């Protein structure tokens, strides 16, 4: 198991490795990184691969359409395509890096790292809430769709799903707000937001493998730089 800080350094190194070289090489590194991230067995229960791939797919389509297509008169621009792809590579690198981190750092390890770094509890809470929000919102929407299907609403096609969800968004956000309010009370009651010493059961230690991986990242960054 690598130290979470090492994982973060690898992710930063990857962003650097994608952004530094010319477009073609950067794109190749990005695709290699994405493939490697998906092939490596996940250490966490996070099921965000589909969401991340959707973000990447939407990004590439829109960027190519915006930069590479003339509408009046209709035509394609090679230079525009390259510009769109360049923007995609810059957006894709952090997305793949976050996907890598989400599959490799367990919540418990992130929690321990934050405490070791002596970050403010409020910052830690905000970070975890941000991580929590999208999966929770997605799950809540799925639950709502299921409940509406049980009432008889047709939700087979994407258009049906949108029609079903839009009127229910108020209820979904109201319930999420209530959840966050309840959760804040409980977190406050447990004393997490208090300044002062906190402990964590999981002990994080740097090992030889961490050192080797960090050295590799530094060497790779040096090669790319020069």
């Amino acid at each position, binding site marked *: 198991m690598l130290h979470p800080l090492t994982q973060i350094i690898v992710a930063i190194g990857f962003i650097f490795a994608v952004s530094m070289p010319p477009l073609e090489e950067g794109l190749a590194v990005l695709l290699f990184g994405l493939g490697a991230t998906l092939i490596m067995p996940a250490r*966490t*229960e996070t099921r965000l691969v589909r969401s991340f791939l959707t973000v990447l797919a939407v990004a590439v389509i829109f960027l190519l359409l915006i930069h590479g297509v003339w509408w009046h008169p209709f035509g394609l621009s090679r230079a525009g395509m390259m510009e769109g792809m360049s923007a995609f590579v810059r957006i894709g690198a952090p997305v793949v890096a976050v996907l890598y981190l989400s599959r490799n750092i*367990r*919540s*418990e390890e*992130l*929690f321990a790292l934050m*405490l070791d770094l002596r970050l403010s509890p409020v910052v*830690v809470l905000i970070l*975890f*809430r941000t991580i*929590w929000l999208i999966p929770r919102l997605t799950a809540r929407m799925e*639950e*709502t769709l*299921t*409940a*509406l*299907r*049980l*009432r*008889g*609403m*047709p939700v*087979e096609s994407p258009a049906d799903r949108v029609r*079903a969800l839009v*009127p*229910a968004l*108020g*209820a979904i956000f*109201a*319930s999420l707000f*209530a*959840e966050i*309010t*309840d*959760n*804040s*009370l*409980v*977190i*406050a*009651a*447990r*004393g*997490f*937001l*208090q300044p*002062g*010493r*906190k*402990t*964590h*059961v999981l*002990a994080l230690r740097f090992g030889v493998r961490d050192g080797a991986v960090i050295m590799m990242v530094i060497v790779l960054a040096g090669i790319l730089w020069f």
Partner: protein
Amino acid sequence: MVLNAEHLSLTLGAGRAEVLRDVSLQLDRGEVVLLEGSSGSGKTALGVTLCGLLPPWAGNWDLHGRIRLAGVTVEQGRWNSEAGILLENPWTQLSGMKETVREELAFPLECRGVSRGEIPEIVERYAMLLGVADLLLRQVHTLSGGELQRVLTAGALVTRPRFLFLDRPLTEIDFGFRRNLLDVIRSQVKEDGGGALLVEDPWLMPGERFSRVLRLDGGVLGEFGGEAANGEALPEKSVPRRNSPCGTLLRAEGLSFGYDPGRMVLEGVSFSIGHGEITFITGPNGAGKSTLGRILTGILRPHAGELFLDGISYHEIRQRDTMSRVGFALQNAGLHLSRSTVREELELAERWGHPPGPLTGILGLDRVLDTHPLELTQSGRKLLALALATGANRWVAVLDEPTQYQDGDGFRRIADAVRFLSGEGVAILLISHDPRLYREFPEAGEIALGR
């Protein structure tokens, strides 16, 4: 004395609604006091206030009065290490920073700086006490509602606060474990010389005795002497449901299902149910009661075994048609709601082929037609969801904890609705931890899971 609250008056919201009116409350050492009150009567607000958790940075509130907890004046928004709280909805109380039960139970201790060496032992002791020792390595999001409620109760007790406010801790706990859970709370309170204020429906704890029973009504606190919660022991009346005598409508043969490979929730479940029959799905926490409900409606597919609806295999019926015939009122009623008035919700149900018809009157929804569903009390939302999920053209209705939050009137309405549906020939499956329902339908059958 552990807690002394004097002349509390609390107003909440932009409309300055008076939630508490001159409430005074004392808890002596070792006391476990039951707090009753109808839905929306201010019980949770009282508990949150006593713990000093009214947030100073949000919410429009105004509090008068004085609270002293373990000899220290409680200031709202300032953490008091002697106060512990368990809120009603278990799903909102996970830290969100931990994945397994073991990690979640360690969290309150980590927050208080308990040394790394001590934490595992404390966690294991409380896991044993609350009957979750075999769940320690489970991911928290895979727990059933009852399992999670036990875990969170352990999480509230694990730091041994002197004052505990527990909001409906038994709602999803199976019958067999309720007394154990209350005993754990009582013995900790006694050992630590602390006190606990417990909000719970008395009918969930037949025969249980408390040092005092308080009632909050319209923001005013009243006391009912020193006795007990009402109710009798749960009758052993249940007819095992194996084969229906009056024409099979729904038949299951050897159903098996598991969320994770190697961990089956249901194994070899078989039963048959006839038109108009009422059947309870029973079993300990985590036995798969709600999962079975989801399989019956076609949301989940069993890994093995087969289901037949009116003699036709589920494999031959489209999922949409299964859902159309088998109604399911989910435990979380809010999920069913999507419109801005009760009237619109009912009209929508009609458009989708399931008009509630007479259920509207039976469930008392005709009195709240122009109310926003989110402005209804929890009990009101349950009534509305029941009507929406079980309207016309259903053959089977699965009701998950239908009487949760219901006082006498709400309970009566739901019992009447069940009788009405049964009379219409709808087969009713009830998932419930409410002993009142078992007494109400002594003729009902039972599908016993996890035994």
